[in-house]
């Protein structure tokens, strides 16, 4: 199966030691939403960063391929790779406050990628930005264009980042925990908006989250990560009905739901942790030899 984004056997290592991603393979088909689920430190954000070419300097891709729109990004010279990623992919980041420049108005922050990467004229870009703000249901868009980030609420800021992610009509969006910093009621609006935009623009979406509830609302398929290794790949209904890997089942059992207060909340049992740890170790031994 070949997706619009296709990651094959990606291994990422810390310079001089530790392994961050272990042989990760996944596909995101055009127009599909693929979820990356994992606890903190599982490496889910690192997959997004590897695709966008924004891995921290201390990390190296030691093997594997990242195919975007039929081209293996690793084979391209750096400048060409950057341009290609810039034109085809975009990021919706986690924290809408730190992702916006506090000292610049909203307008130029949205138009920047159109002007810088796609070489649009400023007026055209500004017109497009207004259209986009309307599309993400921001009232009084001209005023918002002139505002500074601190004048807007968290939900508004996240809408702006969604607008700017879709600005250059990318074919792949990577959303890295886009609603973790928001209230539940705002989170619901933002998730609906992301789904709406994704469907309208027919983009592939790689959705990183630690929240199985959010995952079940947004994604078509998912990969569960543990210590940089994919332990289970599944489509959404099957995963929630019959998780195959014990770690996936344990995560589901540890997630509290308000509708089922009688079920006992089971922390991930040590036996399950031991099992995934062993699988990770066996994997490392296999690849080392």
């Amino acid at each position, binding site marked *: 199966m070949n997706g619009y984004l296709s990651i094959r056997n990606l291994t990422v290592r810390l310079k001089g030691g530790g392994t961050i991603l272990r042989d990760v393979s996944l596909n995101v088909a055009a127009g599909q939403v693929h979820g990356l689920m994992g606890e903190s430190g599982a490496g889910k954000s690192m997959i997004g960063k590897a695709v966008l070419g924004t891995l921290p300097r201390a990390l190296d891709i030691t093997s594997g391929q990242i195919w975007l729109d039929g081209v293996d990004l690793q084979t391209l010279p750096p400048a060409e790779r950057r341009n290609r990623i810039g034109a085809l992919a975009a990021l919706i980041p986690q924290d809408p406050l730190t992702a916006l420049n506090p000292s610049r108005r909203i307008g130029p922050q949205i138009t920047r990628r159109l002007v810088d990467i796609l070489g649009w004229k400023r007026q055209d870009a500004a017109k497009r930005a207004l259209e986009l703000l309307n599309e993400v249901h921001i009232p009084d868009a001209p005023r918002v264009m002139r505002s500074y980030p601190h004048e807007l609420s*968290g939900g508004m800021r996240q809408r702006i980042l969604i607008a700017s992610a879709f600005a250059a009509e990318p074919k792949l969006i990577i959303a890295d925990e886009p609603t973790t910093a928001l209230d539940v009621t705002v989170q619901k609006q933002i998730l609906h908006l992301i789904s709406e935009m994704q469907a309208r623009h027919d983009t592939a979406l790689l959705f990183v989250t630690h929240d199985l509830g959010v995952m079940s609302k947004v994604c078509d398929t998912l990969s569960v990560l543990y210590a940089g290794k994919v332990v289970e790949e599944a489509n959404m209904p099957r995963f929630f009905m019959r998780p195959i890997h014990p770690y996936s089942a344990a995560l589901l059992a540890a997630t*509290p739901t308000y509708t089922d*207060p009688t079920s006992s*909340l089971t922390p991930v049992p040590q036996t399950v942790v031991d099992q995934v740890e062993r699988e990770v170790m066996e994997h490392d031994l296999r690849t080392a030899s």
Partner: protein
Amino acid sequence: MMYKVRDLKLSLPDMAHKPLIGATPRIEILKGLSFDVPKGAVLGIVGGSGSGKSTLGRAMLRLLAPTGGSICFDGTDITHLSEDQLRGMRQRFQMIFQDPMSSLNPRRRVGGIIAAPLQVQRLDGIPTRIDEALDMVGLPREFAQRYPHELSGGQRQRVGIARAIALRPDFILADEIVSGLDVSSQAQVLNLLGKLVRDLGLTLAFISHDLSVIRRLCDRVLVLHLGEIVEEGATVSLFEAPQAPYTRELLSAIPLPDPHQTWD
């Protein structure tokens, strides 16, 4: 009653709209709250960001001074007590903080962190109390020699709990203590807290934005919205038949881990 809160008001100066000359306007954060916390109850305080739930918690512990109304703790009016008068009482009401990394002194070992409030209260047998507190939260006693950065997130939060229960308080306020944790450690901390409440006969107020967590742990819930109580009641009835529109909105916004949930 552990707590009797009547018409509690709290306003803070609004520094964002401070004029160059003249009085700073004030923002009303708590707009006249009245409620009781019975002894042995586990009260959930829930609300969106900016609803005043943390401010309410801090006012109940008198970390903030109310600007109106009254707070009675176990029969004593603590609304206007001075810091000196409060110090002795503070042993009886303790707090567990949201972010264990920033609420544990990075330069002290776990033992010293747990000992600090015991020393303030001039209690004796501090080493024994530290060991007991670590036992109760399920950490090995050797952890007293470790520094916070050597612990995982869940273990750090256990240290925060140990520090609070080492004083043998009657009441504990837990402010969003699991929101920074992974689901697996979240489940452990919640189970631990439930067990401690039962074993030690604590009264607990549990502030959270997460209704699923509240339902697990609490027997009463108070829903705050923009500084006012919009609904208060027993957990079961509040979840089964929410009365206030805001409560219904909160409940319907929660994404359940179930792809068949209708969620529009």
